């Protein structure tokens, strides 16, 4: 496959996705907005499903969500084929791959090819490259500003601190290929950051990218976010980005308990994920997204009573609020498709 054909095809799929975001989604949502506000506010998931799910617009919307992603990863010019061809031509470090296979991955993690990426984001040495390339267009309306999202979140993480002078310890859980970690390292260069992920190919890519960016304050390790190997009460700030919705409920609870264990007294945890939604229509859309995009645990996250769970673990000052991924976005009014970004913050008592 020629790279130019690959790029042209991916551009084509992205343009379809933008159209889906800006034109098809509002059309589907309009059916819901046509109801009087007092009726809408009382509608539950099943009510929305009964009025929307059989409409032709929704069927096309749902089909497109599933199949645009499939084309992106597995089509004739898909990400997987493109990287596989190139990987087969290159020398690959088989020893490294074999070593990675010794690591015991959770069964839930292996059960589904997340985001419809064939083989998941962990099973091939080039899985991290595919994931990175695919993530560039995960939020189609942000385009090149996708980096803004992580930078904005990093600023929130460090908002109470004297960023450049701060020397605390941070753990970035489920760091992927390091996109969430790098802005933190840049804003707090004197901090010491431990970044963990289950995927060896992602960790390898994250290390390379950090080196390219001359970031020496990050240590990347392959590890389960529920078993960080950090000592008790040694971390000032624990964070994760888009991790919770990829874990089943029991794993999420274990994950929170682990962060509580490793945080110092008075330490803070802030996670960026998908949880707060405007209304039952959003819930309906993202319950569907969870299924269509091979992210099955997103749906169970929506049902979790996070404040109660976090309180039971011992966290205090829990704050859950919508997060605007870009300056021009007002989460409650945004007319186009977007993820229900949510900031979930908490402290370990002093």
């Amino acid at each position, binding site marked *: 496959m020629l790279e*130019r*054909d690959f790029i*042209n*095809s991916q551009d*084509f*799929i992205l343009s*379809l996705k933008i159209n889906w975001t800006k034109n098809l989604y509002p059309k589907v949502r309009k059916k819901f907005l046509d109801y009087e506000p007092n009726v809408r506010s009382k509608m539950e998931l099943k009510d929305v499903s009964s009025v929307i799910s059989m409409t032709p617009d929704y*069927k*096309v919307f*749902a*089909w497109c969500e*599933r*199949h645009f992603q*499939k*084309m992106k990863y597995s*089509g*004739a*010019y898909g990400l*997987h084929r493109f990287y*596989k061809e190139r990987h087969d031509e290159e020398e690959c470090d088989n020893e490294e791959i074999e070593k*990675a*296979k*010794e690591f*015991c*991955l*959770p*069964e*839930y993690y*292996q059960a589904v*090819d997340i985001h419809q990426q*064939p*083989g998941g984001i*962990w*099973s*091939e040495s080039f899985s991290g490259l595919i994931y990175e390339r695919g993530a560039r267009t995960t939020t189609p309306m942000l385009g090149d500003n996708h980096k803004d999202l992580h930078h904005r979140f990093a600023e929130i993480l460090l908002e109470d601190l004297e960023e450049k002078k701060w020397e605390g310890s941070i753990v970035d859980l489920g760091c992927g290929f390091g996109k969430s970690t790098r802005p933190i390292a840049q804003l707090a260069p004197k901090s010491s950051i431990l970044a963990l992920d289950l995927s060896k190919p992602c960790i390898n890519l994250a290390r390379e990218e950090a080196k390219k960016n001359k970031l020496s304050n990050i240590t990347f390790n392959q590890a*389960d976010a*529920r*078993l960080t190997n950090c000592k008790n009460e040694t971390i000032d700030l624990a964070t994760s980005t888009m991790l919770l919705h990829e874990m089943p409920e029991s*794993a999420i609870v*274990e994950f929170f308990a682990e962060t509580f264990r490793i945080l110092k007294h008075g330490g803070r945890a802030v996670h960026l994920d998908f949880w707060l939604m405007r209304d039952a229509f959003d819930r309906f859309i993202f319950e569907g997204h969870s*299924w*269509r995009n091979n992210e099955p645990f997103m749906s169970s996250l929506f049902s979790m009573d996070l404040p109660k769970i976090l309180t039971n673990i011992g966290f205090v000052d829990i704050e859950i609020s919508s997060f605007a991924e870009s300056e021009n976005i007002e989460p409650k009014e945004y007319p186009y498709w977007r993820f229900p970004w949510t900031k979930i913050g908490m402290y370990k008592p002093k």
Partner: protein
Amino acid sequence: MASKKIEKSAEHQKTQDEQTFFDDPIQDRLLALSMALANELWVSRCRIKRLEDTLISKNLVSKNDIEAVASELERSASSHDLEEYSATLMEALSGLAASRSADEDTLRNFK
């Protein structure tokens, strides 16, 4: 905490059924085929444009050579090709078989 060693590769589960969204699963497949063709068309258009731009930039053809409306002579010369192309497409819609299948007589005669 359940865990086990990696056992699968990207080649796994190719036989799993695709999700369907329309009343008849054939509609899902036809739309997927159309989208795949549209994807191919876009890639081909990009290639043709690159070729045209290159030919023009190297002065091998003029912009007018490429963009001018085809003359009556050219159109007439390609009309046969166009007829054949249309006929092939329409034949696919005819519902007629292109090979002989067994009918009831055949089955009766060759027990």
